[in-house]
């Protein structure tokens, strides 16, 4: 038997199950069902804590989540940086240290056992928060109506109401917040954690009321406790919180606590009734409460030696959840409390939370004694004097006083200080009680770890890693990968641990001189079908698609309404009323969504249907002078002879025995074929191509080589050389803008005054004077090398590579007035020195396109 434990009683503890725990290095004993706080009190640990700012001795003040003083760090058997001891369930091997102020991370994160965290979405007609009598009644009534009901309570013990068929009851479950339209997040914490995302038709808050203290000099001493908490320790945990007690209250139930204490063997030496004008004017003691001073109605002072002062200044309906979603308050004079008044139609309040609390005399702080010793917010160490200073400095609003004093902002979120502080402000300003409500409440209602909120979609599951059907081959052949949006694409294929630039050089030379194969499956693909498909595409692209011959392919550019380049790709005309449109990898979903938006919202009369087929087709791109031979060797029924299969046309047939569409499209400038095959056959066709290409020295190549090869031809990459602020004219692509075909998206913007300025940044090529010098992508460009500061910025480098084909470094850049600057010199100031470059056309390699037919 420990000094504070009663011989009998304690409805929530199991005396047959003793539990060993450690607090600040001392091993102690409690029972299953105890909280850490009740077990500490049972062991006579009345103090044991320090206030965060002033370092004053503190002890357990309350019995629930409203506890302002008793905060601990738990290091075993789980880790919690900061938790209220009143909410920590006592388990075997619990190791706790008192903490004041900021929590800290575990010294050895690897050794910490993390709980399993699950998230669950659940739909109910009624969510009831709070399992007391009124909550259970609301849940029972709804269940009997046939509603799906979820009843949650933050305590570990909960009497189940008689149920209908569809009621779920969760204990150890805290509603963290209630949000729009009846959406609530509930944190259920046992050994593991479940975060419930609740969508409720309506929400009932039966969250009870929290007792209010009275600010009197010395009220922060260990041994000063909320009266209801003292009662709870006796009744729930069989704990006597003191030996000699006094009770100071403004309401009937407060005095009822005196009876409970007496029955528990506590010597209640004095009850002080504020309703009649009696006051406790001071609590005295060194490390804990030892004595109180009482002022009687006839003005005398009496002293009493006590180690427990149970205080009840009234009851505040617990309305944090109500207020955070916009529920209003009004002040009730008789109850000296704020009660709910007006909120969303799907949200209601029952029981004590609705204002069914005892009537009482309003008493916020005792006039007598040192204001600087009358604590209002225990966790922020803020007193009546601090509030008086704020008010004295001119602050009138409770919200401003909050910001000046931090009252209500600690872990306990002002549960015992909020109303007290607001009424203290009103009183000091000479306002009527209830003139201002307490400061606003926001979720989460109680602390929740990032681990719990993050749920299962974190780490590797934070973002999907998307791969193509050929991915296993790339992995098996040692590809290095880069992220292209959510996709993992082969970046380069290093051989024998060669550095990246060697691999890229080798891959580029293979494509220019022999043949290479690239996995192009990630490109977006959309089927556009219907009698108005030609007209529709004419409106979406800058160039005409309606006169594209069936069997042919055309490159197209797509603009935003603001005239800026948005996406590009090729369109294949499959039939009079049918196109296959390709997009950039990153633009696939965006372009399809745009098509749908225009068709549904502006042009519902156009007979066009769009269907995504991005992953229906895997694509093998074979590029290089020997590409034709490799396609033949792979085995195809398509006539790939030069005359039979011209550039920018396609043929349907078979490759390697698999149905395929072959397209003569080239992003390298070399002879090239794209093989589009059903994705199930992607891997086998790729393997067939690599096998057939071996005698021709075929090399797999990745996105880096692809970037170099296309840059050598001056082909832009939307999103690399463009950034949403670049027009076709800026890119030197007037040839693709057909202004006579009728309106298309972006057409009107192209003649906005800002878009026709001649000093706009325009696409150019750059050849550094030092042929080996690689300009960094993003390097800023200036036209003078005088070093004058500030330097007017003339442009920036968008793409920069070492070119095996050119035998030198080169870059693409956006340069103000660049179209007229070919042959001039510009400079790139860099930390290591300024690089001079000659401006050229952006097509440094094979400018006449002679290599494309092989």
């Amino acid at each position: 038997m420990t000094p504070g434990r009663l011989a009998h009683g304690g409805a929530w503890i199991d005396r047959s199950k003793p539990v060993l725990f450690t607090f600040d290095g001392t091993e102690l004993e409690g029972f299953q069902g105890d909280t850490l706080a009740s077990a500490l009190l049972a062991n006579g640990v009345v103090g044991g804590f320090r206030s965060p700012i002033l370092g004053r001795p503190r002890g357990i003040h309350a019995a629930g989540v409203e506890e302002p003083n008793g905060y601990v760090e738990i290091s075993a058997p789980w880790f919690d940086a900061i938790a209220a001891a009143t909410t920590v369930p006592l388990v075997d091997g619990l190791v706790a240290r008192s903490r004041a102020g900021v929590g800290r991370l575990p010294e050895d994160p690897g050794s910490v056992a993390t709980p399993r965290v699950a998230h669950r979405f659940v739909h109910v007609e009624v969510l009831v928060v709070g399992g007391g009598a009124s909550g259970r009644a609301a849940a029972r009534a709804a269940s009997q109506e046939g509603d799906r009901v979820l009843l949650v309570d933050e305590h570990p013990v909960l009497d189940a109401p008689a149920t209908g068929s569809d009621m779920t009851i969760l204990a150890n479950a805290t509603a963290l917040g209630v949000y729009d339209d009846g959406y609530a997040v509930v944190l259920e914490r046992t050994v593991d954690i479940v975060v419930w995302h609740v969508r409720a038709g309506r929400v009932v808050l039966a969250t009870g009321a929290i007792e209010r203290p009275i600010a009197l000099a010395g009220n922060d001493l260990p041994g000063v406790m909320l009266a209801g908490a003292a009662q709870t320790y006796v009744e729930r945990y069989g704990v006597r919180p003191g030996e000699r007690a006094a009770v100071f209250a403004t309401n009937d139930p407060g005095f009822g606590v005196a009876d409970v204490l007496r029955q528990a063997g506590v010597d209640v030496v004095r009850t002080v009734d504020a309703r009649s004008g009696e006051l406790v004017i001071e609590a005295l003691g060194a490390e804990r409460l030892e004595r109180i001073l009482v002022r009687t109605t006839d003005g005398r002072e009496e002293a009493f030696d006590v180690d427990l002062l149970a205080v009840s200044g009234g009851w505040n309906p617990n309305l944090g959840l109500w207020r955070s979603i916009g529920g209003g308050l009004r002040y009730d004079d008789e109850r000296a409390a704020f009660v709910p008044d007006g909120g969303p139609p799907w949200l209601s309040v029952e029981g004590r939370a609705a204002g069914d609390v005892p009537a009482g005399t309003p008493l916020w702080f005792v006039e007598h004694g040192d204001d600087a010793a009358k604590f209002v917010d225990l966790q922020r160490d803020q007193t009546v004097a601090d509030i008086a200073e704020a008010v004295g400095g001119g602050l009138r609003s409770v919200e401003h006083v909050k910001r000046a004093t931090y009252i209500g902002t600690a872990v306990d979120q002002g549960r015992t200080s909020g109303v007290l502080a607001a009424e203290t402000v009103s009183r000091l300003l000479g306002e009527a009680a209830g003139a201002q409500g307490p400061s606003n409440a926001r979720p989460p209602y109680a602390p929740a770890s990032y681990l719990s909120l993050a749920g299962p979609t974190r780490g590797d599951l934070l973002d999907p890693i998307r791969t193509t059907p050929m991915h296993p081959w790339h992995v098996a052949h040692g590809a290095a990968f880069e992220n292209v949006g959510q996709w993992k694409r082969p970046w380069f294929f290093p051989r024998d641990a060669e550095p990246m630039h060697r691999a890229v050089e080798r891959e580029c030379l293979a494509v220019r001189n022999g043949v290479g194969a690239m996995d192009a499956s990630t490109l977006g693909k959309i089927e556009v079908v219907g009698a108005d498909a030609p007209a529709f595409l004419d409106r979406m692209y800058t160039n005409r698609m309606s006169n594209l011959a069936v069997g042919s392919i055309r490159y197209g550019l797509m603009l935003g309404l603001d005239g800026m380049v948005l996406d590009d790709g090729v369109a294949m005309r499959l039939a009079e009323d049918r196109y296959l449109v390709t997009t950039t990898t990153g633009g696939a979903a965006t372009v399809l969504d745009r098509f749908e938006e225009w068709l549904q919202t502006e042009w519902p009369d156009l007979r066009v249907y769009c269907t995504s087929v991005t992953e229906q087709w895997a694509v093998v791109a074979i590029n290089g002078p020997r590409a034709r031979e490799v396609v033949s060797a792979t085995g195809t029924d398509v006539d790939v002879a030069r005359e039979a299969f011209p550039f920018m046309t396609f043929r349907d047939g078979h490759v390697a025995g698999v149905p395929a569409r072959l397209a003569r499209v080239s992003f390298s400038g070399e002879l090239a074929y794209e093989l589009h095959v059903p994705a199930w056959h992607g891997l086998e066709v790729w393997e067939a191509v690599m096998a057939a290409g071996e005698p021709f020295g075929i090399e797999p190549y990745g996105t880096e080589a692809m970037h170099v090869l296309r840059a050598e031809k001056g082909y832009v990459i939307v999103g690399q050389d463009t950034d949403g602020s670049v027009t076709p004219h800026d890119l030197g692509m007037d040839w693709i803008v057909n202004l006579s075909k009728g309106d298309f998206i972006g057409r009107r913007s192209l003649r906005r005054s800002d878009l026709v300025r001649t000093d706009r940044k325009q696409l150019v090529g750059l050849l550094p004077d030092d042929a080996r010098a690689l300009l960094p992508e993003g390097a800023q460009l200036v036209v003078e090398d005088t070093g004058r500061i500030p330097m007017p910025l003339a442009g920036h480098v968008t793409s920069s590579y070492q070119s095996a084909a050119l035998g030198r470094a080169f870059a693409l850049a956006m340069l103000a007035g660049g179209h007229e600057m070919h042959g001039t010199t510009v400079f790139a100031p860099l930390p290591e020195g300024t690089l001079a470059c000659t401006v050229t056309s952006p097509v440094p390699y094979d400018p006449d396109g002679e290599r494309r037919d092989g």
Partner: protein
Amino acid sequence: MTARSPLAERSADLGRVGARELAFLSQIDVRVDPAGATTLGFPTDPNTATSGGRDVLWLGPDEWLIVGVPGATTAIMHELEASLSGLHCSVVDVSANRAVIELAGPSRHDLLSSACPIDLHPRSWDDGRCAQSVFGAAQVLLHEREGVTRLFVRPSFADYVVDLLLTVAPA
């Protein structure tokens, strides 16, 4: 020809969560005006599906997904093109465009509810229902069919879906 389905390497993992891949199903995306769809017997109530030799799933007011056994794509497409002849419509083979996972067992809806926000309670979700939604960061199509749940997802997201199912499954 050695076709390879998106989840060919994941059958053991799928088995751990009471699931399996339905590989190579025929899938055809049909878009046509609701009036045309009615003549074909397509379901016009949103988010419902009909089952039979082939399933027809409502995806939108003018879009349906036809699902059939492996190898039936060409036959189904020819049949549809004939039935829809003369109508403004689109019939597209999307058989490889989605991987299909079949989840069985009494806890399959709880499993899905770990990362999918739609109401899968029996009073809202039973045989003949289908819905497009999200499962974590993946867009999915769900179809409740004869006591099992089919989950359709783009192949490139299929591994993520399996990994997420494994993560949320009870230990």
